[in-house]
């Protein structure tokens, strides 16, 4: 039942944005809507994960623990982004960067974007899943090109073209899956819940080819290297709260799609095939992103490449496949989503105060924006995997799993590259946060709603870093079952 509230609220909010979007109070209404969604998804999470039950509605919506988990991640980041948007959009209007009617457009697309993302984990039909993922691209392209500058329109164009081509490959893969299903002599269907139980009788050859297309297709959307080229452009040009949504959850919805097909592949072809491909793409992403992080000059692009790195870690986690690694990868999805959102909010505040992206020209953030500077300092340590924060836990789980599985090379590669990235981040952020304030700038106040968003995310980062409330032996096995059945 909760799922209908989760899907319904964004529809009403987008209608509301159409009518009241120009009014100042709409930001608050928007935010409270997402608070309600967050509560619903928590209830949904509790109902499906702890009991292992699945829910179906009209043969159209299918929810199990995996979907509930992804819906929870989306709703957490969407709530934080809605909270942060209140202050951010108002400030943009005050500074004259956008007009009030543009704010209406922003809220309209914000809600449509969230709606399309909520649809992805809720759908049963693999064809509709494809349509939902494509919809997320089409809608968010407007939010990437929102500022109408040359750079942002170029980024939006690259984003829409590269992702559309990528996703066409995913459709090709989906069609081949349905082909494999149709020649097995069963009734025609594309429903995941109907394909999975009979996965072992499907034609292995076709499934193997199909999964490559799926991985390339949805991998483009997930930002796996070498199909990642749209990602730094789009993330760096989008409105700050949207960057957080793109990096925090849009990439994860594509990972979700890969996992759904992966489960079919594991049941039919065996785990090794899935594992090798995931680890391969994950390792390439890690290597490429660490190089770009070292030499990066642009603040938001730095964070975008860091997203590629974390997607790589997640892919490796799923590829390793032991219960510990899968739990680590799922946890990492959540941790990366909240931490990266915090970083993008901080970067948004810096960019709007300094009016530039170039890290070499930004100095003394702690003096100019004391609160944001502090949060970014903590976030920087959290993102690079420093102990009291949550990313440390999920990364160490994946690394331990790599060594206990005997994948020594992967474990060593992870440790080495994480150390390199840690160094690069501390170097870049150290220079930016400290140092002397440029003469033309002075310390400025920050909107209350923005601060609240930071505190909400920081709370989640610290809480999951200190204790793992949901993690015991039973839940570990649930995670294991998700992939291996």
């Amino acid at each position, binding site marked *: 039942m909760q799922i209908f509230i989760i899907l319904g609220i964004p529809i009403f909010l987008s209608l509301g944005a159409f009518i009241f979007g120009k009014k100042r109070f709409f930001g608050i209404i928007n935010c409270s809507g997402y608070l309600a969604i967050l509560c619903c998804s928590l209830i949904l999470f509790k109902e499906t994960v702890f009991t292992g039950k699945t829910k179906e509605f009209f043969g159209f919506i299918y929810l199990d623990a995996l979907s509930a988990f992804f819906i929870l991640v989306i709703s957490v980041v969407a709530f934080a982004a809605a909270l942060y948007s209140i202050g951010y959009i108002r400030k943009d209007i005050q500074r004259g960067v956008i007009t009030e009617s543009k704010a209406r457009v922003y809220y309209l697309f914000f809600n449509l974007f969230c709606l399309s993302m909520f649809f992805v984990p809720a759908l049963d039909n693999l064809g509709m899943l494809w349509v939902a993922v494509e919809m997320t691209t089409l809608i968010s392209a407007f939010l990437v090109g929102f500022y*109408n500058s040359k750079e942002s329109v170029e980024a939006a164009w690259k984003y829409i*073209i590269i992702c559309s081509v990528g996703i066409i490959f995913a459709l090709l893969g989906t069609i081949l899956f349905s082909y494999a299903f*149709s020649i097995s002599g069963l009734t025609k269907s*594309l429903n995941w819940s109907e394909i999975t139980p009979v996965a072992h009788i499907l034609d292995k*050859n076709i499934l193997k080819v199909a999964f490559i297309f799926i991985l390339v297709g949805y991998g483009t959307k997930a930002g796996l290297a070498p199909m990642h080229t749209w990602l730094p452009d789009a993330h760096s040009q989008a409105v700050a709260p949207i960057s957080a949504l793109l990096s925090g959850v849009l990439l994860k919805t594509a990972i979700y799609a890969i996992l759904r097909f992966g489960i079919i592949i594991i049941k039919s072809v065996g785990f090794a095939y899935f594992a090798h491909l995931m680890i391969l793409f994950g390792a390439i992403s890690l290597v490429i992103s660490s190089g770009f992080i070292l030499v990066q000059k642009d603040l938001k692009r730095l964070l975008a490449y860091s997203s590629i790195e974390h997607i790589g870690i997640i892919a490796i986690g799923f590829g390793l496949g032991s219960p510990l690694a899968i739990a680590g990868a799922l946890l990492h999805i959540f941790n990366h989503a909240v931490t990266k959102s915090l970083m993008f909010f901080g970067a948004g505040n810096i960019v709007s105060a300094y009016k530039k992206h170039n890290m070499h020209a930004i100095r003394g953030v702690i003096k100019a924006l004391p609160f944001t500077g502090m949060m970014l300092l903590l976030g920087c340590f959290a993102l690079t995997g420093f102990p009291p924060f949550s990313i440390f836990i999920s990364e160490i789980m994946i690394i331990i799993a790599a060594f206990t599985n005997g994948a020594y090379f992967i474990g060593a590669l992870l440790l080495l590259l994480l150390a390199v990235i840690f160094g690069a981040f501390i170097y870049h952020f150290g220079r930016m946060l400290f140092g002397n304030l440029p003469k033309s700038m002075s310390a400025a106040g920050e909107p209350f709603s923005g601060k609240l968003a930071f505190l909400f995310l920081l709370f989640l980062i610290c809480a999951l870093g200190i204790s793992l409330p949901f993690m015991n032996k039973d839940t570990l096995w649930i995670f294991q079952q998700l992939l291996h059945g």
Partner: protein
Amino acid sequence: MQGIILFAVLASTYLMLIAKRMPALIRSFRYQSFCLFLATLLIALSERQLDLYIISGLLFILKVLLIPQLLYRILRRTNTKEDLGLFINPQLSLLLALVFSYLSWIFAAHLVTPVKEIQISILAVTFFIILAGIFLMIFRMTALAQITGLLVMENGLFLLASAVSGGMPFFVEIAIFFDVFMSVLIMGFFVYKISKLFTHIDVNKLSRLRG
């Protein structure tokens, strides 16, 4: 009959690859879509299913009438040159197209184990169309040609879906149509924006974002 339509699809794709100017490309795209429409109409006539009639009707309205018209309109409104900005000249493109056809034949023959001649030819043609779409997107430098390339790939997938698995489920097919139409509208919108901001639609010159 199937063979003739397949051949017509193939021929129209070749026409697209050697087209030098935008109107020619759009015209060939229209031919290709029309062939697809004939193919689905034939299947619909033989199977007598309402779903298939609706799908072929939608195909005709969207891909033969509306989308090419929209592309022409964008072309006129953006006031840019009609050249496609070829990276590879028509002769070489034609040679590459022959190579692509051969490769997709081999791939199709590899994929279908119980050898059925017509199935393999359909698969080979669809893979060729998809490759041709990618080729158009990579080696033609205007934004409009890239949109057309994407549509060509989509056409290939449509043919594949209706050939190998008897089409996607009905409502998925409708949703995909809707999706394709939306994406053309939105991409067209961005082409307007690019032509306004940059005074050209040559995507090769979009290089402000690097690294």
